[in-house]
């Protein structure tokens, strides 16, 4: 299974693979040590700093392309060891890169989309750092972004579970740092920092599952290497099925954390506190798909454990529907996309759960394109609005229009938008492409990948098929709602009225991503002769990489339902109707037209089914109370103050006092003193005998001798 040397022909660049990590690391080190000075001294400083970071990501992409080319000639891939890591006895973990079609697919997505987002971020962060009032943080952003690329590359390229885990936690760290990038902003000034912490801690819960899986893997297989484990897996499935079940379920816990599935998805919506390029790169296109990659990578274990497959599919498909419904009730442009991401991740997880690994990976790739596109475009919209707001604020004539909401203007609230179609043409068009791709309308990329998942589900997992189709209906609905609210109708705020299109450095990556979102489906059309992607993955996944079928009924049904849903959205939110709705005085107007029809349900959607509140009540507050109780009452008041200070120290003090006063002073001391007094009194008398006259002494001696002699003689 695993070849240290190439056996086929063609150009071969496998040994370059460590550079996919080294380039970003070099980039970040450069920016750490020189970036600050460059920013201070040079007027083009931002371009240099951002450029170096983008170049680092770009070189990483270049290496990934070279690897892909090499794989064409040597599809079996190669393992490139770099160094030992942890070696104890039979435990042997090394830094080694696995180049195969699956990992290279991920590398291409990560570095490709990553590079585009880096370039976009040069423009976006230029404004963002000024808007948030700390231009010096420009450098830090790119350091973190490069760190993320490095960590993500470690994740996807490791040849063993532990190296994967290093990347897994590394991207979690970057996620933490970038969500909390504006750590002094957000609700009460601490909101962003709290969101970051929430993401990290929630992910750690998932990592806990991963760790347990890792322990079991080691003590079952004696190694962490993918190849060795997969080779032994069939034997183990017979000998020790419990271990495999435990491993797969624990890995699933890890997946729910990282890929934001039920029940650990709660961190992802909050993660939108990060700058928009971060949301696009980390929280849509790459990091959150790590869970999908993990299941696909572990395909050969999962196919052996049908129970685990069932659970993965269940988690994925329920999440897909669950999150899609919540997305309908959101007003924050990024929150809608966040829930959409959770939902789409649910599609992928369900796909890899039911064994449709190619479909899952396919959707991962197309989703990376169109969701990155959507997020980046939403960033463009937000900044367009901010520019408009800025313009209005600094124009005395226009400033009057601002009325009350001058300071608490929220550029992410879709209710503050409207009519941007005219003012931001490029953004509008690319956004539309992304939305259609996401809604699953043919022939855009999203249709093909989603349809492949649905087709696979329809064959064996009818319940999953139902759930996913419902989710797809909601998807089309909330995207229609978003497009209509943001881009159509009249501008509802002065800021939207004066919104400005973003510069080329921002729009160029958008256009590239739009093209990819449009044509991305071509890599794996479900027709014979077009299954390139499936064949590509076949080299890694072997028999489990079955090419997708085209089931006309499924395709027609899903497209039809999407169109119906789209029409429903149009009916509810079309510009004319929405303007009428908006004309109702604010006091009587509900927040959304949908509320008039499904009031209480809408309230539940808007509040995300109160899951956050539930977690607070069930887990967080009890833990906080418990830790306070342990710290204040048990450890300090009871153990430290009462037991040690009162019982031991106080008891000892009491005992010593008892000994000192009663026993020592009252007994021993008193006896000793009494003896002294007695002696003194006796001496008082006796001293009179001692006259000091020698003669008296001599006489008494004489008398004494006489007495003794008398006694001796007379006895």
């Amino acid at each position, binding site marked *: 299974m695993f070849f240290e040397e190439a056996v086929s022909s063609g150009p071969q660049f496998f040994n370059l693979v460590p550079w996919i990590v080294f380039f970003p690391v070099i980039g970040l080190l450069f920016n750490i040590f020189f970036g600050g000075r460059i920013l201070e001294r040079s007027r083009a400083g931002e371009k240099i700093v951002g450029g170096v970071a983008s170049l680092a990501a770009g070189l990483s992409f270049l290496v990934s392309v070279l690897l892909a080319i090499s794989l064409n000639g040597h599809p079996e891939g190669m393992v490139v060891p770099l160094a030992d890591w942890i070696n104890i006895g039979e435990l042997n973990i090394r830094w080694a890169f696995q180049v195969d079609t699956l990992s290279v697919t991920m590398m291409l997505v990560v570095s490709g989309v990553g590079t585009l987002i880096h370039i976009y971020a040069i423009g976006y962060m230029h404004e963002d750092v000024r808007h948030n009032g700390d231009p010096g943080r420009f450098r830090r952003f790119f350091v973190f972004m490069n760190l993320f690329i490095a960590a993500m590359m470690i994740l996807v390229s490791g040849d063993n579970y532990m190296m994967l885990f290093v990347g897994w*936690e590394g991207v979690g*760290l970057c996620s933490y740092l970038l969500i909390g990038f504006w750590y002094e902003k957000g609700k009460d000034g601490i909101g962003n920092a709290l969101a970051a912490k929430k993401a990290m801690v929630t992910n750690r819960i998932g990592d806990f599952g991963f760790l347990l899986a890792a322990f079991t893997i080691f*003590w079952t297989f004696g190694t962490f290497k993918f190849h060795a484990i997969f080779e032994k897996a069939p034997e183990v499935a017979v000998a020790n099925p419990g271990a495999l079940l435990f491993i797969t379920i624990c890995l699933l816990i890890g997946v729910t954390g990282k890929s934001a599935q039920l029940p650990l998805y709660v961190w992802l919506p909050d993660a939108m506190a990060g700058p928009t390029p971060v949301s696009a790169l980390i929280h849509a296109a790459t990091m959150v798909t790590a869970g999908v990659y993990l299941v696909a990578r572990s395909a050969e274990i999962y196919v052996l454990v049908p129970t685990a497959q069932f659970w993965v599919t269940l988690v994925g498909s329920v999440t897909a529907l669950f999150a899609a419904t919540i997305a309908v009730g959101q007003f924050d442009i990024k929150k809608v996309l966040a829930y959409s991401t959770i939902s789409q991740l649910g599609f992928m997880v369900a796909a890899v759960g039911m064994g449709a690994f190619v479909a899952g990976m396919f959707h991962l790739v197309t989703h990376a394109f169109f969701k990155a596109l959507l997020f980046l475009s939403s960033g463009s919209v937000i900044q367009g609005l901010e520019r408009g707001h800025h313009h209005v604020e600094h124009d005395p004539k226009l400033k009057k229009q601002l009325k009350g909401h001058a300071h608490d203007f929220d550029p992410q609230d879709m209710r503050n938008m409207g009519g941007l179609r005219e003012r931001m043409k490029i953004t509008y068009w690319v956004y539309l492409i992304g939305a259609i791709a996401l809604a699953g309308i043919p022939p855009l990329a999203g249709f093909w990948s989603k349809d492949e998942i649905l087709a696979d589900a329809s064959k064996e997992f009818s319940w999953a098929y139902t759930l996913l189709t419902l989710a797809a209906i909601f998807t089309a609905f909330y995207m229609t709602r978003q497009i209509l609210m943001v881009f159509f109708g009249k501008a509802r705020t002065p800021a939207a009225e004066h919104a400005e299109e973003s510069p080329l450095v921002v729009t160029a990556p958008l256009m590239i991503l739009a093209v990819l979102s449009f044509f991305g489906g071509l890599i794996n059309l479900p027709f014979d002769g077009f299954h390139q992607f499936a064949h590509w993955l076949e080299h890694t996944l072997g028999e489990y990489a079955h090419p997708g079928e085209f089931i006309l009924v499924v395709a027609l049904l899903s497209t039809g339902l999407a169109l119906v849903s789209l029409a429903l959205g149009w009916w509810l939110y079309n510009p004319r109707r929405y303007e009428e709705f908006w004309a109702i005085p604010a006091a009587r107007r509900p927040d959304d037209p949908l509320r008039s029809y499904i009031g209480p349900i809408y309230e539940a959607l808007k509040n995300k089914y109160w899951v956050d509140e539930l977690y607070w009540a069930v887990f967080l507050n009890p833990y906080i109370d418990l*830790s306070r109780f342990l710290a*204040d009452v048990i450890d300090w008041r009871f153990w430290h103050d009462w037991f040690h200070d009162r019982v031991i120290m106080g008891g000892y003090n009491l005992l010593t006092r008892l000994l000192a006063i009663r026993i020592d002073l009252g007994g021993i001391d008193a006896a000793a003193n009494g003896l002294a007094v007695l002696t003194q009194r006796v001496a008082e008398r006796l001293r009179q005998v001692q006259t000091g006259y020698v003669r008296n002494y001599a006489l008494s001696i004489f008398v004494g001798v006489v007495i003794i002699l008398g006694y001796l003689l007379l006895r």
Partner: protein
Amino acid sequence: MNSLLNNLLQPLTLVTFFPLVGVLIILFLKQEQKNAARWVALITSLITFGLSLVVLAYFNPSYPDLQEVINLPWIPIAQWEIRYYLGVDGLSILLLLLTTLLTPISILSTWTAVEDRVKDFMLFFLLLEVGMVGVFLAQDLFLFYIFWEFTLVPMYFLIGIWGGPRRMYAAVKFFLYTMAGSILMLLAILWLGIYQGSFQVPDLIAKGGIPANLQIWLFLAFAAAFAIKVPMWPLHSWLPDAHVEAPTAGSVILAGVLLKMGTYGFVRFNLPLFPQAAVQLAPWMAVLAVIGILYGAAVSYAQKDVKKLVAYSSVSHLGFVMLGIFALNSQGVQGGILQMVNHGLSTGALFLIVGMIYERRHTRDMDAFGGLWKVMPIYGALTLIVALSSMGLPGLNGFVGEFTILLGSWGAGQPGGPLGSHWYAGLAAIGVILAAVYILLMFQKMFLGPVTKDENRNLKDLNWREIITLLPLLILIFWIGLYPKPFFVLMAPAVDKLVAALQTAVVAGVP
């Protein structure tokens, strides 16, 4: 004469007693010559570190037994002989290096923090180093006991003279607690000496043959001394007091080295001397370790004083070390020893970091900070790295230790293993989540959010001295995290030998 000189120039004798040279020089200084005292202490401790590198250079990592041995008669009484017996092996070499590294770092950290009676401070510090190094090198139980008790005295004065407001209370508590445990150990040492006829550890191990039920009592007597020092739950009550009141350098040494003396004691004495008892009591020790991990983490979370938070986190981290040691397999024990080093580096660095902000703000209340990253970016970034290392992020040192410990204890939890249940490792792994919770809370409260207090607005970022103080620790944090092989290689043969002996005991212990 020649042979005396020869004995004196042994690397181990030199590294143990070289700080006394500095002590002698400082004794001739005047109290006002503060800088001179500092420089002498720093240079002495740096030379001592150099000498420990010499020890490392002579060290043969593939040899499992004691090396560079000095074994001279010292106090012969009747048929017993107390010997001056120093030696180093895979179990102690890393701790020796850690001690000699942390001492100069701590001295450097006091450069401006201690202005009062500098001469005395440096004297005590160098004396402390003699004691600590001696503890890790002594192979004669009596000699070990002397070094062990000797460390108490300088530390008592370091806390009691240069400590915080409740320093006398803390110093006395620290002293009495450790003494109380040591007495039992002394009794056990005397028992061994009288009934086994030797005080030399290798002789005692070779002789063996202590009946199982007696082993348990002796094990417990030794454990009493070590468990208090570690400290294992529930004997940790002295730790927060001592840490909070101790001066920064004292806290660094206390956390970095003195606590390790406890865990080291378990590895060096309890496991090889009483293997059957170790196997029998392993589940109980593991229970205490797991409780310590979870309890320490939960209690840390509720602290307001950042130094207290770090102190309680030590309870949690040392719980991991104990769990690893009592997994009784090579992964667990090697991970445990590495985690001792890791904890010394990370927690030592955390105490340095707390000391740096305390020097600027004279408070350790986390609510008094907020937004420091913006004011002090270098400080923030370095703290972040150290904090991540402490919470066990892969790629940094904490993870390597914690992971191998958990892996080892999971393996020990297999049916027939010393622990016999996966619950130990499973529950301990929750500690990894909880560690993230309290560490991130600390980082958030101190460094994130807006700057709300005016006193914090104009704080100066770290100066070069402070960066240099942290730099060696940071380098090691990355080194161990990314390429721990050289560290594992040093200890592997010794640990393998120990584990093999324990395996035999398992087999022998089964009736």
